[in-house]
Structures are given as C-alpha cells and as structure tokens.
C-alpha cells in the first residue's frame, strides 16, 4: 500500500518535471539570439566584463573564484566537513583502544 503510493507520487513528480522540461510550457533549451539576453543576462555580463573586471581569461575560474568565491569557500568547507566526519566515524571503538 505504502509502496504503491510512493511509486505513484514518484510518477507524478516525474510527470510534473517532464511538463516543466517541455520548451512550450517551461524551460527553454539552448536559448540563443534574443532569448539569450532575457534568460542568461548574468552569464552575458560575466562573459563581457569578466576579463576586464577580474583579469583571468578563463570565465569559469573567474566566476568560481571571484564573483562567487564565497560559494567556493563553502564547497571547500563541505569537503573538509566530509573528511572530518568520515575520519571521526572510522576511528577505533572506545573499548578496542584499551
């Protein structure tokens, strides 16, 4: 019973996402021309001003380390946390150490 409901709701979510993924109703794929400026205006800004504002010729690193550098600190922290957590959980048990 529970399982049936779960699969049905998964099906429903899939249907909703497929509907949204249809360019006629929702997201546009490969926007070009005029759509590029209405949908990807921030990307356009990065491409036009990146070299002059940041100085790197690689736009991706410009964004990742300058415009959105704070997110990169966050990602580094996620990795650090994951390592700290994994080491903490894989340490020897208390009674084994004695």
């Amino acid at each position: 019973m529970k399982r049936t409901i779960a699969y049905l709701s998964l099906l429903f979510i899939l249907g909703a996402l497929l509907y949204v993924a249809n360019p006629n109703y929702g997201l546009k794929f490969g926007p070009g021309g005029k759509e590029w400026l209405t949908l990807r205006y921030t990307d356009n800004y990065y491409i036009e001003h990146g070299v002059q504002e940041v100085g790197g010729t690689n736009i991706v690193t410009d964004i990742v380390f300058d415009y959105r550098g704070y997110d990169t600190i966050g990602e580094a922290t996620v990795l650090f946390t994951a390592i700290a957590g994994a080491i903490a959980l894989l340490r020897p048990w208390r009674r084994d150490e004695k």
Partner: protein
Amino acid sequence: MNGEAILPYLIIIPLFGAFSMPIVNLLGRKAREAWAVIISGATLAVGSALFYSVWENGILVYTLGAKSPLGQGVSFPIRIVWEVDLFGAIMVLMVTLVGFLAVVYSLGYMKHDTGLDKYYTLIIILELGMLGIAITGDLFNFYVFLEIMSIASYALVAFRNDTWEGIEAGIKYMFVGSIASAFILLGIALLYGQYGTLTMSYLAVKLAQNPTVTAKVALALFIAGLLFKSGASPVHMWLADAHPAAPSSISAMLSGLVIKIGGIYALARILFSIYGHSVSMKTVGWVIIIFACITLIVGNAMAVIQNDMKRLLAYSSVGQIGYILLGLGIGLAAYGSQTGEIAMAGAIYHTFNHALMKALLFLIAGVVIHQLGTRDLNELSGLAKTMPKTTFAFLIGAAAIIGMPPLNGFASKWLIYESSAIFNPILGAIAIIGTAFCTAAYVKVLYTFFGRPNERVMKARDPEGSMLWPIIILAVAIVVMGLFPWQISDKVMIPAVKALENQLAYISAVLGGA
C-alpha cells in the same frame, strides 16, 4: 554600531576556528577545549552585536567582493550578497547563544569520548553552516550552507560509532536528508533555468514580472525538501531516531537550531521574500497549515507513550515544530491582516523560545544519562532527591514548554492560540488538543522524577560546573524572558514580522530602490 563592518566576522571567526582546530589540537586537550570555547564565545559576541545593529538600523546588506551588488552599467546583481533583516538577526542570536552553551557543556559531557578534535571541528562547522543560512541573500549560497550544516549534523549524529543506534540513526538521517537536499537543489536549478539569477531579491522581482509553472514546481520542491529538514509530520521519522542517538549536546543543537534554521527559517524566507505576492499566499498557507495540524497531533501524541527520555523530547520537538508551522501557515493564509501578523510573530517568538527550552531539556537529559547511564524513564524515579538542581531546571523547562504563564513559552503559544482561534476555531481547538498531549507527556516525566527514589538513583549527584552552568544560564534566560513577554513581542517579534512581510523593502535594499 556599524553592522556592515562586523557582519563578515560572523563567518570568518567560526571558519577560522574550524580550519585551525586540527593544528591547535597538536597542543593538547586543554588547548583544543579552550580554542573551541573562545571561538564560539567570540561568535556569540559578534552575533549579539549584529542583532543589536540590525534591530537599531534595519536591513543590512553586504556584497562580497565589491561595493555594490549590481554590475557595472546593468541593473541586476552579479555578486553574492548577504542580507540580514530582523528575522535573520534573531536567528543569528539564537544560533550563537545555544551553540556557545552547547560547546561549554561538551567540555564535561564528552570527556569520556575519543576523537574529540573532530568533534569540536564539526560542532563549530555546524554553527557556521547555520549562521551562513541565516545571513545569506543568495539562493545557491543558501544551498551550500544547508549542505555544510547537514553534513556536519550527519557526522555528529553518528559520532558515537560504537553504539548501534548512533550508526543506524546516522544512516537513516543521511539518506533522508540527502534526498531532501536534492529536492532543494532541483528547485534552485529550475528557478535558475527560468529566470537566470540566483539573488533572492532580484529573483523576487523576476517572479513578480513573469510567474510561470516552473516557479510553482520549484516552490513545491522547496516546500517538500524543507518540510523534510524541519521534521514535519509525515516525514518526521528520521528526527525521532536522530535526536535520541546523538550526544546530548548535539541533540540540543539539532532540536533547538538545525530543524528551525534549515526548515522554518528557510521556508519563511523563501515564501515571504522570494515568492511573496507571485503565488497565492492563501493556498500555500493552507498547505502548510494542514501539515502543521498533522505534525501537532502526531508529535505530541507520540511523546506521551515514550519510555525513553530523549525520545520523548524528540517527539515533543516534532510537536512544537507543529505550532511554529501553524503560526507560519496562518501568517501566510491571512497575509496582510492583523491576525496573520500576530500568528507569524507567535511563530518567530516560539522558534526562539523553543530553542532555549529544548536545548535546556536535552542538556538535562544528557546530565541524567551521564550520571546514571540510563535514559529509561522507568529507572529514573526519585531523581529530585539526589539531583535537586537538575530536577528544578527540568521543572522550569517543562513548565515553559507546556506554556505556563510566568515563563516564556506562555506568550509565544498565546499568540499562536489567539490568532488560530480568530482565523479558524477548528485550528485553535487542534492546537489546544496538542497542548493537552504535551502536558500529559511532561507531567508523566515530572511524576517519575518526584516519585520514590529507586536504588540506582541514590548514587547520582548534580553534575560538575561546565555541565551545570549552561543549564542554569538557559533556565535563567527562560525565566527572565518570561517576565517581559509582551515587551519582547512588541519590540522585537512584531517588527521582525513587519520586516519579513515587507517584501519591497527586502528587494530595494539590494537593488537600491530600483
């Protein structure tokens, strides 16, 4: 006071503390403990200063890497912004306060455990993640810090890796939490694909101009993911396992802070500040009210039948989240009216109060486990005789969570009862039924504590200073806040709601009145 000058230190200090902990650990146990206390204490100082500054001057905006969030010659933000309104500042104060007390408490409580350098690193990162969520004004940045908070809490729940329940609860929490995070990430991806920006305030503008089906699907994904994280009822099962299995200092942070920052705060921020007027607030409000009613009844009713002290407290947390969600739901459904304002003020007030009360109760449960080695309520009768101070603090916490008049829980619950009764009497009745169950659960515990002492309890004693002082501070805070309930409500909580409901101010603070 200059809020913009101190805001970065809210992130810098815990980040520095966490990353330097492995090096400080080389100096020995004392240095590591002192470092953890200094770092969380300094964060508390910055958090209080920030709260005061925001309370005085209103919304605070900070752009990372430039003077203005807007790009050259364009009218949209290109950088990450921090945006702290009064609601965010209340959350910051709450996180830093309870976080500091939990760290101090850990000094005594975690003494017999191993791997403590990792423990202190993780607890500071947990605090960092929550602070990042509370101050951010960027949707993807919100996700990054939600992940930092979640990963740190998965590791901390399973920290006692030699107990079966720690590992089991950790695995359960991790699977459920990752799926919830994936929902949220998917929602963010949909919004970015449709609107091309990640800044919350500019996204709100774009949404108002062009509300689409994509935005609604994204909203559904956000609500689903965040209800998971807050432990609302059909998906509360991870909480009832994770909170009892974690070390008590961590349960206090999970129950008091994580479910509220990662759940309630984020939900309120996304619904009020991003979606604001671009979806039907009434519909969304009712969706949340329905979950709130189920959560209220299920959480409080399940608390009554527990025999395990920490499990009882965990289910009670689920029940109290129900009250907060009820306030939030009515705040949305009655948006713009005075009823909605009072309901939302009650929700914010109860968030803060419950953080203090539940932290207090979990810390006391930790003391009991530490002294007696059991948390089975059947074996704890007569604790009042041998641990009078602890029992008295528990009495205060239990009375506050039920909502006894001289304590802080009264005012916040009263605001929620009042507004729900005005909004719809049936909801008021449901809220009262929930409180009846809640009262029964806590009276049951108190009845045990004041019963005839059994042999096991006779050897118990009140704990050492580092474990007792956080409990005393929390109990005093509860009593003092209880003495000025309406002053706090008028001076802090109502303005916080006004700031949250004023979407235009939130937007124009970033876009410069554009």
